[in-house]
């Protein structure tokens, strides 16, 4: 664990206690089995906002607490442990970061206070195909009169169906694959022509497919500069990757600990199964991967806070390692629990499903290996 400030330690403690007491895994399971199709519990989200979590990254002047990525990472790690579904990542980190990095005063003034107060939700609409590929943005934004017309589809938008405001990556020039020609727009979720299809994902969280059917937007919806949006998009994504990696770290730590407990209580052949050396070595390997990944996640969050030049490399590193980690640990969780881990009544399946969705979101380990190699020049 990185060295924390007193404020961060208090935040972490609050998150630990709240998730344990108010939002344990049973709460997520109840949500999943309920009629709720929003993917999160508005009541829990209200409590999170009351604790100030929605405003962690938002400056005090906009109603937030002006803390840093390491701080929101601490909270995400705890919500990752209990699989707590909320717009914390999509709104308080992703959308807030988009506005902070690229928004003008008016845009920030309009949305950041609402985010901090829990009065609005945001989402980032970037991917269009089956895989994370920000360079391949193809949704067109055609100049028309004083504004633009957006046409195209976004395939997998986290919290896209519930978001009040969408950050949409669109192509104002060039072609899919080019960095130049990408522009970000702020489009209200209920804007005419935006057709939102909620997706029923395996992890029971909220994601949506968005169709833009000749959506008219005005010039002042442009977030940042026209045609020059790719750099800021990549910066938003990197911070999103670091935040998601923190959530995944908590996810992996919790599933590892639950499994370790099982190794210490389950008996077969008159022995605790944790006495079997192969399971001991596999547990020790998982522990090793967990510790290595923790270092990467913390380094990525701290780099985001410092705005250092190795943000892209460290965020790819963190997301790739976190992806491989939850993959390994979620598989071992089922295997080491044996038959009981295969039942829907056990939590292992919930962790497994969330693992696969989070592995792919904002880029799979393979995506980030490729990106890391490119960043390093080979």
């Amino acid at each position: 664990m990185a060295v924390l400030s007193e404020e961060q330690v208090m935040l972490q403690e609050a998150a630990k206690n709240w998730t344990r007491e108010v939002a344990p895994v049973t709460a997520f399971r109840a949500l999943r089995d309920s009629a709720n199709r929003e993917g999160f519990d508005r009541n829990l989200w209200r409590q999170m906002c009351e604790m100030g979590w929605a405003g962690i990254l938002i400056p005090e002047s906009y109603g937030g607490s002006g803390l840093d990525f390491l701080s929101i990472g601490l909270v995400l790690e705890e919500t990752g442990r209990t699989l707590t579904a909320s717009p914390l990542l999509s709104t308080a980190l992703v959308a807030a970061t988009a506005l902070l990095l690229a928004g003008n005063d008016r845009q920030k003034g309009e949305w950041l206070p609402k985010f901090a107060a829990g009065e609005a939700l945001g989402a980032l609409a970037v991917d269009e195909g089956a895989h994370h590929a920000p360079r391949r943005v193809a949704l067109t934004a055609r100049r028309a009169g004083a504004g633009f017309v957006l046409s195209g589809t976004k395939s997998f938008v986290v919290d896209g169906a519930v978001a009040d405001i969408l950050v949409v990556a669109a192509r104002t020039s060039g072609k899919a694959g080019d960095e130049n020609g990408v522009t970000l727009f702020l489009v209200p979720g209920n804007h005419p022509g935006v057709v939102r299809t909620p997706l029923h994902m395996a992890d029971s969280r909220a994601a949506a497919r968005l169709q833009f059917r000749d959506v008219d937007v005005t010039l002042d919806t442009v977030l940042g500069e026209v045609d020059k949006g790719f750099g800021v998009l990549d910066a938003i994504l990197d911070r999103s990757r670091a935040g998601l990696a923190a959530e995944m770290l908590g996810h992996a730590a919790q599933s590892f600990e639950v499994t370790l407990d099982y190794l210490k209580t389950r008996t077969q052949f008159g022995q605790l199964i944790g006495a079997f050396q192969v399971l001991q070595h596999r547990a020790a390997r998982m522990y090793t991967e967990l510790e290595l990944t923790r270092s990467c996640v913390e380094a990525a969050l701290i780099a985001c806070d410092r705005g250092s030049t190795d943000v892209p490399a460290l965020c790819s590193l963190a997301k790739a390692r976190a992806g491989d980690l939850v993959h390994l640990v979620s598989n071992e969780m089922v295997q080491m629990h044996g038959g009981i881990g295969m039942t829907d009544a056990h939590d292992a399946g919930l962790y497994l499903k969330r693992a696969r969705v989070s592995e792919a979101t904002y880029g799979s380990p393979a995506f980030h290996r490729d990106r890391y190699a490119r960043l390093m020049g080979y």
Partner: protein
Amino acid sequence: MSDLESFRSEVRSWLDANCPPSMRGTSGRPAQGEEVWGGRRQTYKNPEAKLWLERMAAKGWTAPTWPKAYGGGGLSRDEAKVLDSEMRRIGAAAPLLSFGLWMLGPVLLEYGNEQQKREHLPKIVRGEIRWCQGYSEPGAGSDLAGLRTRCEDRGDHYLINGQKIWTSYADQADWIFCLVRTDTSKKHEGISFILFDMATPGVEARPIRLISGSSPFCETFFTDVKVPKENLVGRLNGGWEIAKRLLQYERQNISAGGFGSGFGGGLELEDVAKKYVGEVDGRIDDGDLRARIAEHRMQARAFALTVRRLADEAKTANGPSPAVSILKYAAARLNQERCELLVEAMGYQGLGWEGEGFGPAEVQAMRDMLRSKGNSIEGGTSEINLNVVAKRVLGLMDHQ
């Protein structure tokens, strides 16, 4: 013309006359949703499936090598191979899927008494009775011999109390073959093998919902279940030997037939990758994923070549090679890998659970992946499998 060749032409013309059109041209399995597992609850979507079972059963060819006296086909091993190859030739569907045929029947032939064989085998051949297997218990998974379901001698009957788990399709089955504890003072030597009707008072089966959403298994509860004494198979407290024998049949079945989603069948990994990832000059446009798919496909081919080689060797050598014991472990590993690669290749489209936005093959990929996690647990975990290879095949000892 040799006897075998004349048998072949006989089979060929019989199949020609009797295999209904919709039962031909399959991969050997009936179409999904049209499988025939038999038993009292069986209904037929396709009346030709019923006809096909009746015709095959009448010849005893659902159990080709079983003696005619018990309803079987009475064929020699070579004749059975001819039947098999002729059925493959026309892609004939298996007329009956049945734990009775695959597991219980062979064991009854070896350990059952004459009355038990005459009573049960013909009904298995005709698909009249569907069987399930009562082996695992909540506290006895890998350590199967740790089972605790009690079976007490009450003079004119046995009284059974306890609980089983992972009973495949117990909610669909008519009868169960079951391991019970008849002596609590010993471990392996206190186990017996017994059969009883699932309609007996005190039997309850509750389906278990799996992480994949399907419910092929049940928890099964026995409360003061009275079982006639003649239903004991083999000798009292001699059930462990029968149990191990039956597990061999089960593992052979699992590794030969592959798992639910199978290899090679269904979607080809490389086609899926090209569709969802794209291609450049005919290559999957992701060198990393492409290399891993190639590696997997090569491993899968090595596995298929090994299954064939070991089968060939078993024919010429005396009995199966000890190497067959690696097949279950290898099959589980490969199927899990394949399922994971499919989901990975599909990207976001492979992460759906149901509903709009996902095609049936996409949803199936996720569910198959989840279901495949059980491959390395059911029928003996991979850990147990590797222990067995180390000890029985490689001759490594346990701690002294």
